[in-house]
């Protein structure tokens, strides 16, 4: 089977997965307690106003019919609109999702830039203080919840040292100056990146240790090639195979992780919109945003599979 037929086979599975995602999301919304109309209108709402809004959001129909109507609207690209703010969910996705993608992308990039050299160096200096230090950091990085870490970062770098602001993403543009624009990203990106650095550094280190024991490395050394060249030109290529395959998934998880981070750092991304929607039981927004994030995860998983098949030809025939 060639790469294209593998890709097509994975592609046709997507509608089925998306269908199950819609069913799960819809079912979860229906079993979640709470009346969004009552929340929005408050206890003094007139019965006519409540009835009109219920009809507008199909809440006066049977549950199966509500699902059918939702999917029908989805098929025409209509994710509905917020019960609370009347804002179109597609507009919300268009304004909020890019913010989350940028944060997650920056965190992934920073993670790669730090984790790869750190992992390579730790493997190169196996059992040295560097190695122990990195392993200690990865243990801490994987153990501390992102939320807690974010609070510590705020306390230390924003409140005590005053190096960076706590929030401000979305507030400033490039015209306010490079530093003013970029500084609000520092803490959220750092909070998100620490866990990923720890994860990736461990993968890189383990992979590098394996590669360094390979025959071709010994041959290269026997030929008198320097360590730096061996690491960069020969070992790193092989080490990056597992890293490349997990990048897409790591990136997707970073988007998921931004939910708590966005709340803390007041970031106008999809996560903060989702939290507000959950608090207000704004079901169309929850359904729409969850679906978009779900489809994004599916797409990233597909990308990971394809990358894996591209970099390791043995996989595509599986």
């Amino acid at each position: 089977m060639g790469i294209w037929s593998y890709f097509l086979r994975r592609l046709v599975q997507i509608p089925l997965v998306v269908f199950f995602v819609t069913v799960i999301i819809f079912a979860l919304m229906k079993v979640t307690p709470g009346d969004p109309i009552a929340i929005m209108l408050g206890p003094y709402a007139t019965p006519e106003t409540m009835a009109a809004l219920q009809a507008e959001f199909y809440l006066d129909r049977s549950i199966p019919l509500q699902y059918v109507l939702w999917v029908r609207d989805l098929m025409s690209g209509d994710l509905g609109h917020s019960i609370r703010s009347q804002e179109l969910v597609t507009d919300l996705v268009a304004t909020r999702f890019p913010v989350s993608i940028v944060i997650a992308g920056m965190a992934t990039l920073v993670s790669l830039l730090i984790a790869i050299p750190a992992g390579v160096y730790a493997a190169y200096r196996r059992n040295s203080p560097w190695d122990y230090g990195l392993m200690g950091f990865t243990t801490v990085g994987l153990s501390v919840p992102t939320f807690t870490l974010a609070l510590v970062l705020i306390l230390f770098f924003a409140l005590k040292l005053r190096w960076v602001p706590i929030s401000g993403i979305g507030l400033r543009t490039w015209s306010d100056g490079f530093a003013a624009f970029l500084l609000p990203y520092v803490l959220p990106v750092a909070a998100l990146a620490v866990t990923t650095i720890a994860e990736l550094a461990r993968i890189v280190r383990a992979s590098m240790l394996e590669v360094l024991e390979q025959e071709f490395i010994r041959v290269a050394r026997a030929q008198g090639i320097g360590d730096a060249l061996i690491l960069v030109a020969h070992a790193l290529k092989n080490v990056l195979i597992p890293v490349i395959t997990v990048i897409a998934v790591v990136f997707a998880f970073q988007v998921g992780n931004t939910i708590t981070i966005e709340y803390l750092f007041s970031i106008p991304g999809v996560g903060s919109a989702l939290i507000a929607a959950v608090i207000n039981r704004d079901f169309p927004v929850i359904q729409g945003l969850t679906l978009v994030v779900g489809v994004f995860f599916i797409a990233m998983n597909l990308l990971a599979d394809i990358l894996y098949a591209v970099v390791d030809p043995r996989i595509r025939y599986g």
Partner: protein
Amino acid sequence: MSRMQSTRSTRAANGGISRRDVLRNTAAGGAALGAYGAGLPLFNIVRAQDNKITYALFGEPPGLNGFVYTEIHGNVVTTNIFDKMARIDHATRRIEPEMVEWKNEDPLTWVLKVREGIQWHKGYGELTGEDILYCFNHVQEASTFQKGVSHFPVDHAKLRSKYVVEVKLKMPFSPFPMVTLEYGGSVMCKAAHQEMGDQEFARNPIGTGPFELDSWVSGSHLVLKKNPNHWRDGRPYVDEVLYRVIEDPSVRLSSLLTGEIDIMPRPDPKDTPRFREGGEPGIAYQSVPGWNWDYMDFTFPPYIAADFPTVNVDVRRAISYAIDRQTIIDEIYAGEAIVTDNPVPPGYLGHRPSPIVYPARGDLAKAKELMAKAGATGFDLEVITSDKEWLRRECELVAAMLSEIGINMKIRGMDVGTYSTAWVKKQFQADLEDITIVSPDVDSTLWWFHHKDGIVEHGWENQAVSDWLDEGRAELDPEKRTTLYHNIVDAVLDDCPYIYFNHVNLVYLLKDAVKGFHGGPQEHVVPLWDVQWG
């Protein structure tokens, strides 16, 4: 291993980077960055220079149309975009004309004279009686929430001349200026609303207030710019108000301390003592008893079995005596509340110093005596509450207090929507909740809750109280109204259909240099036109 060590030595000798080099360079870089950061607070903008105020909202407004949205965040912003027909002066407790002056021609006829020369934002022309009439009609035709809570006495309105509107009532209603013109008196621009419709208007409001909406970045911030044509002399003093959405209270506080915001509402109660005691240089603290209550209420037959223990008045009195209100204030609100046992907060007509009957520290002996008199030897009581963290803790505290008199309180937390539905439909045994009183007239603190036709009355019927409440609405003389409301409060204290605990203070923290900010007793009304940098 030995091969690697030898390679490292060789590389260092050849001018490569050794471990020591890395350490040295990292330390130097860190020190440089530290010095840079300490010397240059890059983000700490001094807003006094650009004459801008940054206010932290603890949630994002869903929209800025006062005829659609009733929640706090939107109202905090629209206070500064829209004027009202009348406005309560919190300092004097008087109702003052804002967009209209009024005259009560006869008990059913109120004539409103529009202040001339007021301009709508963004070139929408002058405010006239047409706009006022449009709003009165819109409430009735669109059945907005005002129809039920502030415009219920209105029969119809009509235009007498360009600047004069006549409002005919269905019944005499003395709090008309307070309830209809103040609380329900927001006015929107007819031309703009007709042009845009509800949805677009809520994102692009056109008012006559001191500020106009400049931009709104969803989930992040709203910018209001000074209205250059505003009718209040010389105001507003600042050129711009930046509302930033910061939901977490600890992050709001940190943002104030780092200088990113200038005024913040609702600090976490555990953080307030150090500011109250002046422990934070450069930060001022304001605390005002709020127009709100924490309370417990009960259902009555037919919404609950006639033999259920709380139907017995002595059990309800016992509960009120068993509550140690001061402990609730100390433990839940860190002292930021005042004790009450009745529904009339300070500042309202008919307010009396609290507590009137039930001691702040409770009276357990009296409570036990009343339980014994009622023959209630102990029972389970399901208490509903909404999903607010402080109410959950308050419920736990009250449960501990009631266990002392043999009541096993079962707490049932609900999301706000489910809770509101259960409350309005009277589907509960008892309820512990807080509520903000949105209208500045005492009628609003009592009628809806204690009149037999009130929408949140739960089966408690007291004909005398209902009669007094109706009489109070028709009576224009404040002294006579005061007597009536004292009678009502005494009856409520005696029969305990609602048990009141406290009025929670509204706490604001702000930079010392911010002058002219006065947090009022209404959380949703935060005027900023008097604010300036000192």
